[in-house]
């Protein structure tokens, strides 16, 4: 866009480097060339890059005629997945999240009625702050209670592509969570089909203000 006159080798190399880095998968020379000015020496740039990264922590690799950066094989021991003391959600927070996930949009009172105990202050705040839960709107019922739903971060965190992917009864059975003694009439709502027509949007900051408490994140 900005530079239309022939860029020099160094510039082509920079561009190839950036393209390979940002690409979601390996790129062929032709795919790279398509994004460069006509006549650009892609092969030369790849060779130069390959040489430049030789022996570094990152190397340029060719797979099936396509190119990609990857970390040096001898450093693979660094790449092991590691779970570094992430804080765990408290039981209350997790349970609240679960109810919101399956019953959304739902009100605080509905959450409490499933849990059988009142929500401790801060549990919802924590879930909101973490971005797992969001204020959805207001129920068109007396008192116009605020409704809660899960937010994108919830899906992200649990690697779900949509609410549709939330495990249902079958998965719960498969996971051994539900055995033969399935309660009569046990149904898991499908949140992906939850309509939001009974909700009206709301002003931020309207919700009754729960405390920011410390008790909802377990320490271990």
């Amino acid at each position, binding site marked *: 866009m900005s530079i239309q006159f022939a860029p020099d080798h160094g510039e082509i190399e920079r561009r190839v480097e*950036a393209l390979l*880095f*940002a*690409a*979601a*998968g390996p790129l062929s020379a032709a795919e790279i060339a398509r994004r460069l000015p006509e006549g650009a020496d892609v092969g030369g740039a790849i060779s130069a890059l390959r040489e430049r990264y030789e022996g570094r922590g990152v190397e340029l690799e060719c797979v099936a005629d396509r190119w*990609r*950066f*990857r*970390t040096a094989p001898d450093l693979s021991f*660094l*790449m*092991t*997945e*590691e*779970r*570094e*003391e*992430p*804080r*765990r*959600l408290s*039981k209350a927070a*997790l*349970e609240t*999240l*679960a*109810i919101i*996930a*399956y019953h959304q949009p739902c009100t605080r009172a*509905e959450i409490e*009625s*499933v*849990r*059988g105990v009142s929500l401790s202050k801060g549990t919802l705040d924590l879930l909101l702050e*973490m971005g797992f839960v969001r204020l959805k709107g207001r129920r068109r019922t007396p008192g116009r209670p605020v409704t809660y739903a899960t937010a994108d971060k919830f899906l992200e*965190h*649990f*690697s*779900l592509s949509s609410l549709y992917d939330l*495990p249902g009864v079958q*998965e*719960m059975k498969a*996971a051994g*969570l*539900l055995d033969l003694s399935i*309660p009569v*009439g*046990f*149904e*898991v*709502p499908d949140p992906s089909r939850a309509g939001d027509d009974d909700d009206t949007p709301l002003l931020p900051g309207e919700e009754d203000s729960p405390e920011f408490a410390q008790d909802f*994140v377990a320490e271990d």
Partner: protein
Amino acid sequence: MTDAFQPNLDFAAVEQADAGEAFVVDLDGYEGPLHVLLALARTQKVDLLKLSITRLAEQYLAFVHEARRRNFALAADYLVMASWLAYLKSRLLLPRTEKVGEEMPAEEMAAALAFRLQKLEAMRRAVEAITARPRLKRDVFTRGDPEALVIIPSDRIDASLYELMAAYVTQRRREEQRHYNPGQRVEAFALEAARDWLREVLPKLDQWTPLERVAPEKHGAEGPSQSSFTASTLSASLELVKEGAMEVKQAEAFAELYLKRRATGQALELVP
């Protein structure tokens, strides 16, 4: 409100006219009075702290006046600000009296307003500066295909889908044990349906008939409960009574309710 009171405005008539033209366009462009004031102040092209509040007030009043002609339902905010500015202007222009009372000197009020505008202006500039920065996924890109390495920062919260499911099931079980089941909706015999039902059976109700026999009978396990059929039929029958199509009687509280079609032309008869 004549020019004699505003000697500093004498030479600004042309500029003022331009400003008026420029800003009385579309009120939607402004979020509120402060935004308008800031826009007006900018046209003065002076340090906001050295701003002429009287001149600003003048321009703002002109703005509101003009905007009102086009948009009658001008927001109250604008009008309140206008009157406040008019007041401030008058206090700035009038010779200062000895008795100031509790009120803040007009000059200080003006300075404070200028400060507020300056602050808003600073935020405007901040927005420009921030949005001019390279933005992720628009101007700069991180690695498109990161490897399996997952370093979970220690401030991350860990919770798995399994835990989520487990938490859900546990609660639902507990809930079941409390014999409380909000998931099962009580199906009710809709009032509309009850009305239709009554209108249908009405021609046959020429004798006093107990409510239970008028209400539809429940068939099978599905559908509303018998008591819902009865309750809705009663509600609908009361509506029909009101319309004059039907009569209802009950000997005493909790006694059997009887329904009967009301013959046309018959006077409405109140039965205790």
